[in-house]
């Protein structure tokens, strides 16, 4: 595989984390325009851990993901009293606030005679874990997909369990969930925290893949895309948002003659899907039908 293909595949993998993060919240009925903040904050935190404090990468990812999860839960506890559009606007406001803070944060430490750390608007250079350890692009891609598989499997297991059912209940009918004895606010905060962790893992990987992060990358367009992936691919299964990412970053990026028009095509695709398939390609009903087909086949074989 040439480097271009590996880079595209790695991007698909890393963006998938934020897509899954937004998807988890869409399941519970919350539309967050702020998941890019957790991706970005974790990228900075993880980058700081490895580049400034010489931690190993797994510790960096852990630091980033935990920081993102904790901040997400705090923000969630403050904003989840708001419903619907108000919540969405609050998440957007928080994300912009986080980005603006990253624009002014300058903390540098000396590492091997060089100054490393976030430099405000100039970004955070020198997250060189990959070069220092001589890790190839292919190896890093495998790390991305390993963690993505782990995240996806966890989400699929959650979806089959009572916990997944609780999350879908919140998204489907909040009052009914409450009337069945579920503390809806508590489960929402849990979902927001988990979504923060997932976005955080993606952000931590991103920082180490590009070796350089800047606040501008974590602008609202990233969050909007994250939402669109789930809405395109479908909210019936965790595979849905991955299909959304593959369509956008994979398919549209790969077709060179629409380069430059990609956003127009993508926007049109979102609009058409929202009209004809409001809950995406793999929505709950199609997933249910697919499952029925598979279980019938298994019965036939047995």
């Amino acid at each position, binding site marked *: 595989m040439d480097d271009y293909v590996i880079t595209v595949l790695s991007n698909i993998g890393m963006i998938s984390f934020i897509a899954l993060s937004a998807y988890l919240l869409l399941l519970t009925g919350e539309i967050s325009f702020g998941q890019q903040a957790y991706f970005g904050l974790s990228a900075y935190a993880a980058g700081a851990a490895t580049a400034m404090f010489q931690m190993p990468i797994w510790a960096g990812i852990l630091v980033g993901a935990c920081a993102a999860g904790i901040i997400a839960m705090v923000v969630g506890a403050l904003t989840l009293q708001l419903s619907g559009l108000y919540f969405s606007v609050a998440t957007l406001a928080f994300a912009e606030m986080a980005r603006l803070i990253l624009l002014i944060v300058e903390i540098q430490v000396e590492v091997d005679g060089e100054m490393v750390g976030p430099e405000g608007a100039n970004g955070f250079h020198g997250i060189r874990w990959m070069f220092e350890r001589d890790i190839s692009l292919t190896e890093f891609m495998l790390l991305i997909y390993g963690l993505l598989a782990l995240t996806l499997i966890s989400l699929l297991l959650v979806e089959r369990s009572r916990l997944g*059912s609780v999350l879908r209940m919140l998204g489907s009918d909040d009052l009914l969930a409450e009337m069945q*004895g579920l503390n809806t606010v508590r489960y929402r905060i849990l979902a927001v925290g988990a979504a923060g962790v997932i976005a955080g893992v993606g952000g931590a990987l991103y920082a180490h893949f590009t070796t350089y992060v800047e606040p501008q990358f974590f602008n609202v367009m990233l969050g909007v895309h994250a939402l669109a992936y789930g809405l395109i691919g479908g909210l019936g299964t965790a595979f849905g948002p991955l299909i959304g990412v593959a369509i956008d970053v994979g398919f549209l990026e790969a077709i060179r003659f629409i380069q430059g028009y990609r956003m127009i095509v993508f926007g049109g695709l979102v609009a058409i899907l929202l009209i004809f398939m409001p809950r995406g390609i793999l929505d709950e009903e199609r997933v249910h039908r697919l499952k029925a087909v598979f279980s019938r086949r298994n019965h036939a074989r047995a």
Partner: protein
Amino acid sequence: MLALREVEKRFGALAALDRIDLEVTDGEVLGLIGPNGSGKTTLLNTVTGVYPPSGGRISFQGTDITGWKGHRIARLGIVRTFQNIRLFPTMTVFQNVWASQHSRVSGGLLALLRSRPSRRCGDTRRVEEMLELVGLLKDREVLAKHLPLPARRRLEVARALTIDPPLVFLDEPAGGMTPAETADMARLIHEVVAPNRTCVVIEHKMALIAGVCTRLCVLDFGRKIAEGLPGDVLADANVREAYLGTDDALDA
């Protein structure tokens, strides 16, 4: 079992419930009747914690539950169905009933994660028993939104009974049903819902009220205007007056 003392619910200037005193006794089937807008569903919503009362006290089995959140009240064992039917439309019949057990799973998040519908266990058998009771076992893998209306009402009943609650509220369980379907629902309430528990039925259909209720309470404009045995209450002049002043509304 359930006691309301001077319970009030105001929406702005409108008193939807005006100092209601009501005692629901153990084991009875109380019919809550009254014209449209008389406050029946408001009373149910106030008791189940959809919104807090504006005044008065509500207690359940000796516990003061005034102002409690809905999920806490539900966990005490007050379960309800809905006038306009609330199900999770994109979940299957089985999943809808299974979902009512979530709050009863002990052991925190890990237990919630470990429990799956595919596992054969007491919980899944209980769900199947309930579906069998209401005649929906054959439809267990059908999405709730694809069920016809009477089946949806029966599904709500199955869901309400799964955790074996001491008190069940049925909000117009025969709403939108034909006379034959109403008779089926009356039988279901009489044979399955009422035994071993206390039940409050909100209903307009006299066929159902007369068939299942042991006592009636009549609301009009948010006030309790009559209470007593079904025969006495339905003969009461005030009650007949409340139903548009016509005799035929009650005979229908």
